[in-house]
């Protein structure tokens, strides 16, 4: 079946709300899923992979465990980027926006591809971001130029022993400067693939024109989650709607 971006976002917000997310968190999480799905990054598959976890645990956030002049380390406490991605990016940009560069690591976190949407949004305030993480046996690297609407998304052969659940984010004035300043961290192995912006654009345009294809089972799962925040209707409650 097909859904619109707007109704998908609305449904996801309510679904995340039903999972205990707070306002702010559920807005951001919904936006992250929708962005991935509408730009061809399998947002629904990634959502499915985390729903069970979110459904069986209380929402938890990251803790700041280390801070030193533009270097931050957050412990994700095994949570999802859906819950700690915004605070991580905000922490990095709070430093970078004052003219310096920032390096931030989130350790012990999952579903890191969702960070894409947060980086794109944060880049609209004239900041650049580079981020990378280990995905199975390769490395994903994302670069976002200031005010860019789409990221450069590439995959590389691993050439260092990366913690499988770590995400590194660098923020500063522009991508070239970040590449130079943090060269020691950004030496990747051979590139094994990229995901052209042109395809992201086409995916997005198609999503808008034709709607977004969603598996009926997932849509029903979201409906089930949404139903948790609905209140049983009674004759008395109808009075609270004007009857």
């Amino acid at each position, binding site marked *: 079946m097909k859904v619109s971006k707007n109704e998908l976002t609305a449904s996801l917000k309510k679904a995340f709300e039903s999972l205990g997310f707070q306002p702010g968190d559920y807005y951001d999480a919904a936006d992250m899923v929708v962005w991935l799905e509408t730009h061809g990054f399998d947002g629904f598959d990634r959502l499915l992979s985390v729903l069970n976890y979110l459904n069986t645990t209380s929402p938890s956030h990251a803790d700041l465990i280390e801070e030193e002049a533009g270097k931050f380390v957050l412990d994700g406490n095994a949570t999802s980027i859906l819950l700690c991605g915004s605070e991580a990016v905000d922490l990095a940009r709070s430093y970078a926006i004052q003219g310096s560069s920032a390096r931030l690591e989130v350790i012990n976190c999952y579903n890191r591809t969702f960070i894409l949407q947060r980086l794109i949004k944060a880049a609209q305030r004239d900041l650049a971001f580079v981020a990378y993480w280990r995905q199975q046996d390769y490395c994903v690297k994302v670069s976002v130029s200031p005010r860019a609407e789409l990221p450069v998304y590439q995959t590389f052969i691993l050439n260092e022993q990366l913690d499988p659940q770590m995400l590194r984010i660098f923020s500063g004035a522009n991508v070239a400067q970040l590449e130079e300043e943090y060269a020691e961290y950004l030496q990747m192995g051979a590139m094994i693939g990229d995901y052209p912006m042109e395809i992201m654009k086409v995916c997005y345009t198609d999503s808008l024109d034709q*709607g977004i294809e969603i598996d009926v089972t997932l849509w029903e799962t979201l409906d089930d989650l949404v139903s948790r925040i609905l209140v049983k209707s009674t004759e008395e409650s109808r009075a609270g709607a004007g009857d």
Partner: protein
Amino acid sequence: MKNDLHTTEFYSDVTQLPLRPASKVMQLERLGSFHQSRLSFMRTLVRHMVTENWLINRVLFELDTEGYGTVIYEINAKYGTYSFVVFSHYLDPENRNDRVISNQWDLTMALCEGSVSQKQLEFLKANVPKQEAGRVDSRVLVLSRANRSARTFNYVVDSLAHGHQPDIDAIAEVGYLYRTTAAYGSGKLGMADWEKVWTKHRDFARPFAAEMFTCYMLRHFSIQQAEYLALQASPQTGVTLDIDLKRYIGIGNSTGLGMAPFLINHPLLINQWIEMRETAIATVVACSASGIDESTLKRLAESTGRVVQHLGEIVTADERQHKANTAVRQELELLYLWLQEQGPKLANNQYVWSSLIQYAEQHWLVETQELINTLLIELYPELVDRFEEQMWVEEIYEVTPEMMVVDLIALIEEKYDWALAIDFSLQESWGAFWYRSEEKMEPRLGRTHIDMGMEKEMPLGIGYRVRLCYDQLVGYNQSCSKQNVAHFIVKNPTFSGIVARVQTMALTYYGDIRENLIHQDVLPIHLLRCKLSFFGVSKFDPRSRLWVRNTMFQGAPLISDFDQPFKDEWQFPIKPVLNID
């Protein structure tokens, strides 16, 4: 003459003119006293349809003798072609219900992009009548439904069938033949996203333009269907409606609580609407700096007289509204007399409009004040109509993480002083809560600790959330001074939403609506009226503090008027004087 319009710190981005302060404008009672204006969406839509001479043709009219069947209108607008598809069904009168939870209607409708093929028509036929229980696709822009007026529809058909026009007073009492109970757009139920409409369908690239158009077409259909049924019943003696009566027939609307959360969940958009309206007022006030010509004063007198008559013709069983209408009429009669007596002398006065506004603020009801603002805006289309293209804004709410916590505390003290002034230790201050019912997710208002569902409360109590955030910030600042907001959120992640809202809205002129929406005596009807005024409705008829009936497009030009000379003066409809033998 000194006027507080000139002492405020707020200035319009668009005109650099001083605006009324948020502390005055954003009070819920004032917002609930707004009336439609030239910037209202119906007014804008009609201006575009008429001046661009949209061509609207009936391409299918398959109704049986009872008026049931399918009708399609094809619309050739300035930038594109659209189809308005109507399904007319039999409805047992006992099942006729205006509530959103209803699942049967007299009419169901869809506004679609392009022409409709037979295959698409079959798809629409299978889904549109189900409304929320069906699914449509991204070719559909709006989905809507409507019910016949039990008081007027059959009466009008019978009158026409018997060869005479319906009694104008009977029409005036109701104002329409059909009443719509919902018009869904913006991607609901699989429809086209607003982003698609905005980028691909320029004819409807203004807020709610497609939804308003759907209601306009419903009005057109309602008249055609009534005439068709009359002629079916009496081919020999049946007549069509008098042209002035046709113009006087609008579309009814019932609006309930569902509209209220929209205003709270879209504060940037609401700020934009209000800022444009206020900019229009400021523009008008500024242009009276060096005097007003007599013809403008005369036009104001004429329009004031028209509103007096309009208010006198509104029929409402709501005592509060009736009293308000009466009082506003009396005050406008004073304005009318003043303009009659003093008009010629006023022409050379400086800042006449400032003086009038100031006088009204000191002596008259808020509703009268806002009506006067509407009337003043009306006088200067050449100055204010340009704001119609600025009624939309992209809504992005985001945290400014580098802001120091101490600065955020100061920001809340400055911009949300109204929220900090609420005493939440009083039970009445949190005596109500908002929730979504399992019946079509209808928003409802519950009584705290009395009704079920508090644990599923919607976060619409902005004032309360700001208060909690403020207290947390103050405590945090005492233990961790010189930290920024990013650090505060890492420690207090559940406040990220309200922090983003506060920081975003602080950058706007008008900010949030200044009301405690969880107070036990909250009047949601003010929220509904505010939004409806921007839609452009008239004749508010509150049925309780939770829902209101009103009239859309009453007095508006007909499609047959589109190629005629156009005077954009159909607001505040009054009973036409018919020349009937």
